[in-house]
């Protein structure tokens, strides 16, 4: 589904990604871990097409298409979704209105009929329950006055409603207490196991901590350092990291790089 080869990217002239390779197949969950400044969030932003990041080298193929030639909204419509670390607030636009606009924009892109208010609400309300969100938050302005946990859950709600093929969760666990973390994980697992299309979906979890992986079990774990993936393995790698810290891995990684 996703194939990243030798990706180099920079922001304001500072190179952040230095030859990143990653391959994600449908149905897989990949966790990307790494210390601060290793390029984890940059990867999410580059995949989404954020205008501040310039790709200087390498390629990203998504379902065979060159992702880098697509605009931000085209990528979204093709099925790339990023749950942001710091979701933005937008005054005056209600959550439900935003979701409807987003869903119908994507449906239009795929030449599907737009959902009317009734069908749409039905769909949203069932998803709201899955993430344990209060329904009234739907009618508030986007993320305005939401708590940290509510914002993160709102991102997951958007994911559940939009049903992307590839969901990139950028430190969705940061700033969450254990109850909120469980709810978020529950939402992600529902997305993953959705009987209708679970096999066609993939998830990239960007996280600092192993904690999240207790609730969302990854198929692969990658360690990102200095803009490259320096080690890959199964779930046991995350446990090893948790125990020994990044430092234990890095000298080996650096010498092998």
């Amino acid at each position: 589904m996703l194939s990243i080869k030798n990706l180099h990217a920079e922001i304001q002239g500072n190179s952040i990604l230095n030859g990143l390779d990653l391959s994600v197949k449908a149905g897989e969950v990949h966790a990307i871990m790494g210390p601060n400044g290793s390029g984890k969030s940059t990867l999410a932003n580059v995949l989404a097409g954020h205008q501040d990041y310039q790709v200087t080298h390498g390629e990203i193929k998504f379902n065979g298409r060159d992702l880098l030639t697509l605009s931000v909204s085209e990528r979204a419509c093709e099925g790339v979704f990023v749950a942001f670390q710091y979701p933005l607030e937008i005054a005056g636009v209600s959550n439900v209105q935003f979701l409807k606009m987003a869903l119908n924009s994507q449906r239009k892109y795929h030449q599907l009929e737009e959902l009317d208010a009734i069908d749409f609400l039905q769909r949203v309300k069932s998803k709201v329950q899955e993430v344990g969100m209060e329904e009234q938050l739907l009618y508030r302005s986007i993320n305005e006055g939401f708590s940290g946990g509510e914002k993160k859950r709102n991102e997951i709600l958007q994911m559940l409603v939009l049903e992307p093929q590839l969901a990139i969760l950028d430190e969705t666990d940061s700033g969450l207490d254990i109850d909120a973390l469980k709810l978020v994980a529950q939402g992600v697992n529902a997305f993953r196991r959705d009987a209708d299309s679970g096999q066609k979906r993939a998830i990239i979890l960007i996280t600092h901590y192993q904690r999240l992986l207790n609730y969302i079990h990854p198929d692969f774990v990658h360690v990102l350092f200095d803009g490259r993936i320096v080690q890959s393995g199964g779930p046991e790698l995350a446990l090893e990291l948790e125990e020994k810290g990044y430092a234990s891995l890095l000298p080996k990684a650096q010498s092998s790089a």
Partner: protein
Amino acid sequence: MTASRQNLDRFVGSEYPHGFVTDLETDSLPPGLNESVIRQISARKKEPAFMLAWRLKAYQHWLTLKVPTWSKLHYPAIDYEQIVFYSAPKTNADGPKSLDEIAPEILQTYEKLGIPLHERAQLAGVAVDAVFDSVSVATTFKKKLAEVGVIFCSFSEAVKEHPELVQKYLGTVVPYTDNYYAALNAAVFSDGSFCYVPKGVRCPMELSTYFRINSLNTGQFERTLIVAEEGSYVSYLEGCTAPIRDEHQLHAAVVELIALDDAEIKYATVQNWYPGDKNGQGGIYNFVTKRGLCRGRNAKISWTQVETGSAITWKYPSVILQGDNSRGEFYSVALTNNYQQADTGTKMIHIGKNTSSTIISKGISAGHGSNAYRGLVKVGPQAINARNYSQCDSLLLGENCSAHTFPYIEVKHPTAKVEHEATTSKISDEQLFYCMQRGISQEDTVSMIINGFCKAVFRKLPMEFAVEAQALMEVSLEGCVG
């Protein structure tokens, strides 16, 4: 700086879609202003003597006035010797009696503007008094209105058919001495609309007027007078578009509203005059005096405006709350793009007891636009328990625009409660990115945020205008960023 910014700049630069000129012979006076021009205007309109006398007094007063300079507007001095003060479509000397008699070019112009007069009027149940240049060319639904005793006609017709009403109310809210542009309007106004709703009558339909400026260098001086007698109700809509012109065109309208005991007047405007091109060339100069007088107890006057057009907007729809328990409302969205300038707001003058007023102003600036809210809340010494709530929000799109708020508050009674809230916000690149990451296009993102910002005002518009207003915002702003 970024791809998204460049897109937005291109988007902001969308051209005015209503720019075309109808080829019509016009019967115009030579340019310039003097007493003889005023006498000719009055004579051509076959006005009674009191009108001519009033115009001449206004002209004499205007000569003593200086152009006001207190606003935050910058524009070259207007040469009044270059302005044609009267032009009328020539085709029918006696005036058309039905749509069949109207010149096909005029009808086509309305078609292009999306105003299929007959259909639209019938379908929407709206009586349209269409003003083409200075003379009304069509009035519909008059009969239905006449059945309930509502008079709705062109100002010239009102002067001929109902001189006693005109004489009784003309200039009682905006006297010719009020200000420079009001004096000019009083001297030379060519036409406009007149509406009279008798006691206890609820006007059975929304009243609507479409203005359109067409003749080269013709200043438009409209005058509207609406009188709502005791216990009556009327809702009036006004919408405007104009063709592209290189020369700046002057528009100085006056609107007077009078509400007696328990009467209510709602006045809504969607204004979309040519704003000038990307470089600030052309565009309408709009100097308007709009004022309502709540003369009776429990009277209510509400102004709603959506201003997206004009190069220069100078406009302060106001309410004088003279009757006890009377209410004034002002809901405004003003948008400036490219080099547009707007200095707009309201005055709420509390005189009677227990009077209350609400001001909701939403200013949007994009491109090099400059948007100023200027408002006065005045509570007089007799105005016991006066209440005012004001909210002024500004939204900036891009780096080169500006927003200013000038609230004036004068309170002369200790029981008054006056609240003022103001915010300034910006559509940021990050907000755009966030929405676009969910699959929403840049254009739709901007209009979604703008509509969210304007919602409180759009809600006050009659349904058909709310839809038009949203479309207008999209056209006027196609894609701006912060």
